[in-house]
């Protein structure tokens, strides 16, 4: 299983975000345990990946079995490995620490909240781990869209501020999109 760590790191949170969303409709009490389990697996595989990186220097994972110029590949080096561990562990601790206040604030929409939170972490992990510029744009959009959803739940001026953030985020992502063109000439 250890050769699949880069994929597991992103896929497990994604699949469990879907499960959390389904659990939000069917049985709300399951949301939190699934979220904790997902981030635990992500943290575990990020630590495992860090050890592999320490051995092999650069870990390359070809998604779909296509080699990089034609397909998408994940590449992890020392810095990426370290950032992955930090992001996933902090996200896990944050999730556990805020359990009570989240349940008080979003008692009705707890499934949606945890779905967005886990997808946000997925986006961040993906941004760190990916080795493809256009893939980075898509993951950036995931992180920012879920971010808009989470930020706008705040007090009175939150929606307007989020809307302004959305305009700027979109301009930035669009220019990033063009940068991806120059980076890898459509690779």
């Amino acid at each position, binding site marked *: 299983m250890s050769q699949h760590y880069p994929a597991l790191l992103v*896929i497990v949170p994604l699949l469990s975000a879907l499960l959390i969303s389904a659990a939000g409709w069917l049985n709300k009490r399951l949301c939190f345990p699934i979220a904790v389990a997902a981030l635990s697996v992500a943290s575990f595989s990020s630590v495992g990946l860090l050890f592999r990186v320490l051995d092999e220097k650069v870990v390359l994972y070809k*998604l*779909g079995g296509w080699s990089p110029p*034609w397909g998408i590949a994940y590449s992890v080096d020392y810095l990426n490995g370290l950032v992955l561990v930090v992001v996933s562990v902090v996200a896990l601790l944050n999730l556990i620490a805020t359990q009570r206040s989240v349940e008080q604030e979003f008692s009705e929409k707890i499934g949606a909240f945890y779905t*967005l939170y886990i997808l946000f972490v997925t986006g961040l992990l993906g941004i760190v781990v990916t080795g493809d510029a256009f893939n980075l744009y898509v993951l950036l959009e995931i992180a920012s*869209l*879920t971010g808009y959803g989470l930020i706008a739940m705040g007090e009175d001026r939150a*929606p307007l501020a989020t809307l302004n953030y959305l305009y700027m985020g979109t301009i930035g992502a669009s220019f990033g999109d063009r940068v991806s*063109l120059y980076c890898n000439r*459509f690779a």
Partner: protein
Amino acid sequence: MKIIALAIVILSGGLLLYATQDFPSWADPASPASMHVSPHYLQKSMEETSVPNVVTAVLADYRGFDTMFETTVIFCAGVACFMLLRISRQTPEDRYYRHISTGVTIHIKGGGKIPDKSKEFERIDTMWTPFDLVIKTVCRFLIPFIQLFALYVIAHGHHSPGGGFQGGVIFGASIILLAISHNLRIATKRMREKLVGLLCVTGVFIYAGTGALCLLMGLNFLDYGALAPLLHVDPVEARSLGILIVEVGVGIAVMATMIWIYNNVSSAGKYDEGL
């Protein structure tokens, strides 16, 4: 403010116009973008994936991982709209009913209501009262054909323009047409909120689950060749079938999300009165 904005816009526009000098001229077959990797796609996609539509092959196979996250983006948007707008507790509001046989409209104030099962009265929106037989009948005839076309677009994405996104959006649009031509309550009675939410999840799950199945079968994530033993075909054919499975998942997710966003936006989260 406007003058500053104009200055910024003209300045950056001028810089970009200056940069166009270095661009290859339009429709130049030898432009750098067309020389690097696209020849490989055009020459190899048929023998590697057996899909004639190169766009579908690249979208769902070579760059299938992008497409999976793209479906996730759509799903995120649906959940975010739900999170931002949905109001579950209703404040009592005025309601309008129409007596079906005579067409008399009655207005009930302050949360009173006639039971929904009543055969004599039907509930109407406060802002849209006229009863239009022509629109309702035409839409009722049209919707099944739109849905059939959507299924064709999803299924025929390998050989012609189309695929999961377009088909899913068209299917979603047919339900939105029902909501516009009749009213939101009839549409949500056909597609309940819970069903829509679960379909959204199912669509993305089909995509990500197919990828995870490939991983469990021992190859890399989203390597559809790994499905060959399950489908009893050779690996190249399995890629083509894998693309079809994935497109169906995308179609379901996109359809459900479009309906979900429309329901939330058009009723401002109350699921009561739509457009």
